[in-house]
């Protein structure tokens, strides 16, 4: 099983990175045992969610080099599939999650086929458009609760592993951490796969890639499908964790932009980039954002700050925080 071997092969990474990753993993595993506030726990859960969203975004936005601002539509499909199946047919999370992923991937093929005929800004705009159209449709669709959304009722006693209903947040945390680790290891395998190499060749130069027998259009669609699976998986989780979902919080443009921004801030096209980005921006959003909006009386100031961050990244280091690390390392050699 070469694919499995590739997934666990971290040999091409610098020792220092692996050391840091191990320390971070130890922290993540121990976190619930440390003293923490419930707001701190919620922030950690959001960090894991956005790390996974970012990993998905990174496949096309980073490795593939095409900026995607429509990831929220797949969060929505995942979340709604799980919620609808749970409410109407009592289907457990572990069955509805794969179904949500499959539906989202199916949708990604349908829109990916025309979308990947577009390049640059046009692609980015088209991803925004499809996402917003889907959101508008959900807002008027009574079957999924319209603009008011859906609320998942309690399914018997807690802890309920089948429907992911827990009183304590650390259950959610560990389930999500499991998804995070699987996602990370799968991503490492993807990086080493034929499609992973081909995507990076496409990002470099599509003409050269085509001359090496790569079907550029189809490769992008395939990578987009994998990216979608990541995002929809977390979307399904989000429905159970939040108990209620509505189009505004699962499919908004804000969410799409936030996903893209975290991955870009951390470092598009690198394995750790989306995780670094989420580790910086999620706490900032939660702590600084709520402080600015609450005590300091500057509601909306955090949004202005995101804009500033995007501009600074674009101008100073397009490869984000991880790009700075790489630049420093290259200079030392």
């Amino acid at each position: 099983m070469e694919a499995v071997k590739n997934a666990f092969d971290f040999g091409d990474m610098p020792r220092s990175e692996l050391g840091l990753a191990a320390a971070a993993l130890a922290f993540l595993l121990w976190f619930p045992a440390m003293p923490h506030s419930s707001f701190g726990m919620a922030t950690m859960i959001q960090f894991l969610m956005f790390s996974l969203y970012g990993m998905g975004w990174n496949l096309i936005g980073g490795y593939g080099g095409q900026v995607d601002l429509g990831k929220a539509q797949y969060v929505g499909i995942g979340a709604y599939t799980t919620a609808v199946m749970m409410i109407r047919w009592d289907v457990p999370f572990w069955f509805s999650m794969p179904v949500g992923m499959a539906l989202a991937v199916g949708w990604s093929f349908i829109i990916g086929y025309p979308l990947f005929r577009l390049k640059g800004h046009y692609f980015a705009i088209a991803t925004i458009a499809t996402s917003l159209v889907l959101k508008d449709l959900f807002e008027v669709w009574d079957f999924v609760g319209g603009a008011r959304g859906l609320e998942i009722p309690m399914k018997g006693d807690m802890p309920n592993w089948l429907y992911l209903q827990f009183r304590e947040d650390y259950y959610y945390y560990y389930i999500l951490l499991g998804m995070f680790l699987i996602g990370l290891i799968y991503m490492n395998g993807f990086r080493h796969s034929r499609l992973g190499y081909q995507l990076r060749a496409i990002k470099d130069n599509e003409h050269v890639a085509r001359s090496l027998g790569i079907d550029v259009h189809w490769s992008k669609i395939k990578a987009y499908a994998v990216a979608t699976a990541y995002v929809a998986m977390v979307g399904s989780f989000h429905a159970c964790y939040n108990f209620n979902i509505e189009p505004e919080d699962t499919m908004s443009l804000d969410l799409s932009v936030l996903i893209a921004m975290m991955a870009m801030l951390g470092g598009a096209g690198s394995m750790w980039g989306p995780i670094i980005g989420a580790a910086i921006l999620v706490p900032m959003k939660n702590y600084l954002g709520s402080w600015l909006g609450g005590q300091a009386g500057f509601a909306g100031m955090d949004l202005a700050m995101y804009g500033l961050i995007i501009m600074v990244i674009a101008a100073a280091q397009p490869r984000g925080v991880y790009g700075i690390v790489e630049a420093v390392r290259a200079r030392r050699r």
Partner: protein
Amino acid sequence: MALLQVNNVTKRFGGLVANHEVSFQVDQDEVVGLIGPNGAGKTTLFNCIAGFYPLTSGNVVFDGENITGLSDFQVARLGLARTFQIFQASGDLKVVENVMVGSFMRTSSRGGAREVALEVMDFLGIVDTAGEMMTELPVAAQKRVALATALASDPKLLLLDEVGAGLNPSEIDGLIELLQRVHGERGVALLLTEHVLEMVMKLSHRVIVLESGRKIAEGEPATVVKDPEVVRAYLGDHYVKRQKENGDA
């Protein structure tokens, strides 16, 4: 049977005729040079053969299969590889990973792709650069990596577009020797365009001359350079007249 048959290929861009009724063949055991002054349509012809441009009329047969109308990546999979005039160094990939993109055309296994890449790089004498980043290499070495990447896809025919451009005379000598080995030891047929005439003359068994999109001469290198049509195309009418007056022609 010929490996590559180009039959009456015409390519028009609006009113501009870039290639007009061009026909020629390349055999499996041949090195063929395609020369002509600037703007003669050499690169366009390459792009037509490789499936990068659709033909206006005519057809191209490769290895017994009509490849007219196939996409460039489909043509590549049949064993027709190419290198580009302007080579862009990859910022993201290490040298060996870059070459692996070529070998991934024939295998989906990472280990297998790596093995083929290293073998080809060893053959071309660049295996010691495997771990470096593309951007750190000098131009001559980058060109060898591009060549290695194309060879790693195990082609039957390799189209080389101006591989000698930007190299100094000693680097050109090295490249000539290398390409002779690629042809002799790996059995890859070569079709090359070149500004550096010396290179084409030393390498090619046969030379085809294009001018303004038309084929004006074909034959052994030594004969073709003396052809009055070819001299005129390169040097102008005056030179042909003067040659006649001096009794050279």
